[in-house]
């Protein structure tokens, strides 16, 4: 049986799902950020119970954890997504920020980032697409997906995920998973599209 996970760092970054977890490890490395532990809380419905058990975890008070950043996809409504995170924070007895990117003071302090940003619908792939949208392959990506719709009558959804995965399929050494793609350097970490996200991570 693998060893259970333990909290090892006073700074915690909680992300939604395995793909996000695989992305943020190389992303933080590219930023030169160390000392932030990344935790995958699962799906959006799992954040509330995850936080509830997280604050009970053996090392939580012992370290202690001083900073928690939570990243969640906006899905259809970034304001609803932010409210949902706040509700989960409240349920776990944690400080609740007033808006995305704002720090809620306390021990620990908390901060929330909604992907792709606090005003747009979408998900992590939406942000990743912004970083690589200058790539010439995108001419073909959208043409291909349009061709699929014409041929099958079915539109691949979510659209941004379909565009992003199609883009990955165009790389010279195909890495279909976000984490592998990130490590292979396909995601253009130097793009200004990531500036606010980097600012958020540095604030932890």
């Amino acid at each position, binding site marked *: 049986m*693998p060893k259970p996970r333990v909290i090892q760092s006073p700074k915690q970054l909680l992300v939604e799902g395995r793909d996000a977890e695989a992305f943020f490890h190389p992303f933080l490395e590219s930023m030169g950020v160390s000392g932030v532990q990344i935790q995958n809380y699962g799906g959006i419905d799992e954040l509330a119970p995850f936080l509830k058990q997280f604050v009970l975890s*053996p090392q939580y008070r012992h370290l202690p954890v001083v900073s928690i950043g939570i990243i969640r996809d906006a899905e259809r409504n970034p304001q609803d997504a932010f409210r949902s995170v706040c509700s989960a924070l409240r349920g776990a007895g944690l400080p609740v920020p007033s808006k995305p990117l704002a720090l809620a003071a306390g021990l620990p302090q908390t901060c929330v980032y909604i992907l792709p940003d606090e005003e747009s619908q979408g998900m992590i792939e939406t942000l990743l697409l912004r970083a690589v949208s200058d790539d010439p392959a995108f001419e073909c990506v959208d043409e291909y997906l349009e061709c699929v719709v014409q041929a099958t009558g079915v539109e691949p959804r979510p659209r941004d995920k379909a565009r992003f995965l199609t883009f990955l399929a165009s790389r010279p050494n195909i890495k279909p998973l976000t984490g592998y793609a990130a490590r292979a350097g396909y995601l253009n970490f130097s793009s200004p599209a990531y500036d606010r996200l980097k600012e958020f991570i540095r604030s932890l």
Partner: protein
Amino acid sequence: MDKPVLESIHIQNFRCFEHLDINRLARINLIAGRNSVGKTAVLEAIFLLLGAENIGRVAKIGRFRGLGGRNGPVGDVLDLLWSPLFYQLRTAGRIEVAADLSTGGERKVELTVATAPSRPLAVGSDGELLKPGATAGQVLRQRFTDSNHDESTFEVRLIGGELHIQPVPSTQPFPGHFISARRPPSPEELAALFGQLVRSKRVRDLDLVKILNIVEPRLTQLDVIPSGGASMVYGDIGLKQMLPLSLLGDGIERVIGVVLRIANAPGGIVLIDEVENGLHHSILSDFWQVIDRAAQTFNTQVIATTHSYECIREAHQAFSQNGDYDFLLHRLDRVGDQVETVTYDQEALGAALKAEFEVR
């Protein structure tokens, strides 16, 4: 269904606890935590409280730890049995163990060491004590109160190398058993427990063979058989004769020992130290199903300690499947000089196990 006996427990100045509260107790409780944080000490405190009418329990919990023999002189009692009961060996203080009962009342026991003898000591012409081993000040006093305003005080004295209890202890209002990690049940104990269940006609409430099949699928029959002046529980696993359960493995002894004690403590409490001892991980789920059913059938509360993540996970999954989840995990955390309790309910424990987070 009746509620389990204890709703909460509060401990002061006992063993490693200056102060410890467990504010919520379920029917089935697991206590986890690092080594030497006090998991066994919690069970000992509850054991003292259950038998608050019997100060002899103090010597018993010493034996659970491997201290003192069954018979014969006790030796230097204060150092070996009594002072280690007190937080930081401060025998000038007072131990308090209190519990809120599901009946709405409270039960409390207090232990103090008297510093002066209340009877003179005989001395010979050479100045030596006429009763060897008798020493001034070795009196342990136990005071028990409950919400009916009943109050009793008992004393234990060391006289002539023996412990003397006064007054004679009375029976406790609800039954309790302590299953030690170090001391497996003797064959005679198992036979006695089995016999009590038969005598009370409650053995029919348990299908013991089916229960033990989780450990030994070949078992088809159990019986109590006198042998060599004592009775033992024998099992038939298809050989040419039946064998004592002690020859069928630790697992089968463990399971029957736990189940028989639950069945023999109706409306009471069974305390189990290192519950997973002797059990292969593959049977833990079935084991917890058995415990859950037995505890509900006999209205017995179970409070157990564990080091095992698998044990916790299998308990959670077993109780989640049963629909009536009456289980809590309590972890003891050392914070500086103090020990604090962290309690996981079903939602928190489920999330922790799903995320494969540490909970011990």
